[in-house]
């Protein structure tokens, strides 16, 4: 102990000091190579205890570093060591720092010091043998070069996790279906608002098929379908009228029939179909269309007019006259009906 100041001097230097302070910054005196320039409290080193000087130094050095060392450093294992390594190191350290190793000896202040060190050792062991806790602690205590790497890996991991989650969502039929229904309904509503009824009906119909239990979607789809059919029927009707005017009777008949396909209750389309069919000499078809027209639109003059025309063609003049009169009653300006009735009366008179 001759290398530093004498114990007496140390006591005088700081008599109030009870134990070495964690970051003993050159306050004291004794130095050893093994403990890397650490300054030992000579008063403690010369305490009346049954312990070798080297042992004392080891204990003091460990105790002074408790607040500074990481669990890894305390156990003397590299950062990131395995649970098994941590455990083995703990058992090895326990042999040096467990108070029972010194049972029966005079330990003076070293008993409490040993216990302090041992407690920290146990704490370190408890953390480092538990996989989850070790990983978290490893992140906290990573050396600078490792920290950047670790952070990078963590970010990469996070990104991968997010990606994986998205991929899973896409692949998962349930998740995929739910998101697709949402998409379709939104698009359907948009189309509906914009008046693109056919598109809306298609989307909503698909959505309803994917989510048959959803009553709201079902109603929405039915409504869209109905509106789209009506729209298509009236479009076809206009098309048929145009064809009729330009004398393309075949095309007109086909268009009228198609309109009826979309909207069987389109009375004017039925009447038109009957009219064209009659002109084409398809008497039976004309009659069926005329009857359908009257059934669908009992208040539609054109329907009664068509029926009248068919009946006239079949020679049922009385019935034809009644039908035409009904048409005129509903629409006094129905020129066709007026003409036909006049002709019938004439023939009747004649």
């Amino acid at each position, binding site marked *: 102990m001759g290398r530093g100041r004498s114990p007496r001097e140390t006591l005088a230097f700081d008599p109030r000091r009870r134990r070495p302070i964690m970051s003993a910054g050159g306050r004291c005196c004794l130095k050893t190579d093994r403990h890397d320039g650490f300054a030992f409290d000579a008063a403690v080193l010369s305490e009346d205890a049954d312990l070798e000087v080297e042992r004392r130094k080891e204990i003091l050095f460990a105790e002074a570093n408790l607040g500074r060392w990481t669990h890894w450093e305390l156990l003397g294992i590299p950062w990131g060591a395995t649970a098994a390594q941590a*455990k083995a190191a703990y*058992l090895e350290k326990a042999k040096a720092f467990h*108070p*029972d*190793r010194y*049972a029966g000896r005079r330990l003076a202040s070293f008993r409490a010091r040993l216990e302090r060190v041992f*407690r920290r050792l*146990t704490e370190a062991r408890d953390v480092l043998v538990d996989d989850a806790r070790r990983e978290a602690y490893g992140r906290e205590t990573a050396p600078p070069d490792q920290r950047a790497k670790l952070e990078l890996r963590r970010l990469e991991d996070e990104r991968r996790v997010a990606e994986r989650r998205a991929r899973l969502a896409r692949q998962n039929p349930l998740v995929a279906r739910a998101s697709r229904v949402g998409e379709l309904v939104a698009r359907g509503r948009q189309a509906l608002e914009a008046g693109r009824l056919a598109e809306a009906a298609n989307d909503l119909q698909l959505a309803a098929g994917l989510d048959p239990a959803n009553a709201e979607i079902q109603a929405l789809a039915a409504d869209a379908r109905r509106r789209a059919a009506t729209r298509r029927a009236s479009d076809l009707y206009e098309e048929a009228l145009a064809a009729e005017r330009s004398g393309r009777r075949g095309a007109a008949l086909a268009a009228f029939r198609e309109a009826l396909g979309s909207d069987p209750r389109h009375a004017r389309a039925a009447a038109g179909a009957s009219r064209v069919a009659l002109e084409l000499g398809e008497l039976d078809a004309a009659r069926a269309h005329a009857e359908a027209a009257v059934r669908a639109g009992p208040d539609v003059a054109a329907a009664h007019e068509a029926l009248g025309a068919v009946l006239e063609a079949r020679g049922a003049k009385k019935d034809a006259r009644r039908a035409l009169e009904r048409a005129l009653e509903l629409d006094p300006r129905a020129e066709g009906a007026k003409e036909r009735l006049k002709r019938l009366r004439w023939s009747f008179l004649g």
Partner: protein
Amino acid sequence: MSDARPVIGIDLGTTNSVVATVQGGMSRVIPNRSGQALTPSIVAVARNGKRLVGALAKRQAITNPEQTVFAAKRLIGRRWGAKEVEDARRVLPYALVAGPEGNDVRVQLGDRTLSIPEISAMVLAELKADAEAFLGKPVERAVITVPAYFNDGQRQATKDAGRIAGLEVLRIISEPTSAALAYGFGRQTEKKVVVFDLGGGTFDVSILDISKSVYDVVAVGGDTYLGGEDFDRRVMDWLTFGFARENGGVDLRTDKMALQRLRDAAERAKCELSAAPSTAIHLPFLVGGGEGKSALHLDKQLSREKLEELTKDLVDRCIAVTERTLKDAGVRTAQVGEVILVGGMTRMPRVQRAVREFFGREPCKGVHPDEVVAVGAAIQAHALAAPGGKGEEVLLLDVTPQNLGLLVVGGYFQTVIPKNTTVPTSQTHLFTTVQDDQTSVRIAVLQGESERAIDNELLGEFVLDGIRPARRGEVSIEVTFDISADGIVGVSARDVATGQQQSITVTATSGLTEAELKKILDEQRDDLLEKKQSWKELDEGRERALAMIHDIEALVPAVEGALERSKFGKDAIQKASAVLVRARAAIEARDAAALEAELEPLDRTLQLFRGLADGRPGGR
């Protein structure tokens, strides 16, 4: 016998106790003065007023049930009024009374009222004397074992018993841990070991990691109400119900004497069935027939199958507890490197089979279930008495057996140090006030497994005052629990804001107050002084005896050589060494009368030895 001051390990059992020591690196069980390894944990005051301990006490138990104390371990460290004590009062034939402060249990024995530690101390003193006779040296230090589930109070009471018996108790350790120490001693083992300890009164499981000389206790578990006695009770119930059916409803349970015989017979039958497939239970003249009829006899045949059927749920419970303990410790059965069976009940084939099936491996056969605990205690005692710097001595890293914590608002228990924490340890938790402007707080330190504070054991309490008045919940109180390597619990509380601090060292109440303990120890000192005086008078006798012992020992090698080929040789040597042991014991015990009686045999032995040695000069 190189150890200057030998130390011993004592397994203080419910039914039997064992003492062991370590000599020259070898562990060994010390036979008692009647040559048995097991000493019954029984104390009695005989009709003639003499105090009897061990086998002698057991022998007269049936004829003297009121004055024979057995199973004291079930009462040690218990409070008067506790469930266990109430149960015991119903079945025990001896009288229990409340202690002077009304909170512990005393036994009325002869004209004295003795505390339970004093009863246990008599057994310990007997074992100590056995060890001294065997080792020929005074023994002052010991390690004593207790069930893993013993709480602080029970451990403290056991320690007091040791003190009363004149022993410095180096450490109280758990029985299963001790068994593991004995298992690993001198084996250079590195594996996980499970100790399955089914004793007379309790069931303990411990998991240890043995790594050469370091024994790391990973977890302990158990059931304090499950043991061999429960098995006996099943057999007793079966016998009593059968008896009542066959004899017109005679209830044997109303007759204490009959009950005691029944208990013995049930235990004996159970033990016999471990070796035999069937056994006869024969108890003649068990009870009087009443009304002038002749006495009734009990004659029954019990098969192993029937016993297994009667006790199946008990075995299942053992396995369930084992499973839970392993799960708590996160250990799979496949990781277990050895299973050690401890306690007499593990001799039962059904128990062994259950263990084998659960662990999928054969339990260790290398340890003696009755002796292993005492041997482990001796090993730990040896390590604590003479720790070598070589690092070859065993090091036991023990854990806390139960949760330690505080009483918190609502009558709940808040754990601060959970069970299975390696000691020494310290933990700090923050608590707060529950009322506005609360200036003091009561810290009640508890130990136990229940969430409700009232079901746990109160270890001690203190008040922290001088708290800064503030709204409730705004004050931070830092409570630190600290357990030293010796198992001493310290608790301190600090108001973080004001720095006001209060702390206690929890000395669990063993039932005996410190003053009482002192009185008992003082009485014993008086006793010693008395003996010393009588010793003085017989100083001359001692000198003579010591001289003869010395001469005899010097002749032993020569005599051994002379007798080597004689078939009586062994016998002669043994007889001679018995004389030496008795003489030494008399010297140690300062028993003048006994020494006087030994002088003559000593002299005879010396003459014999001299003759033998002279007849074959040069020996071997």
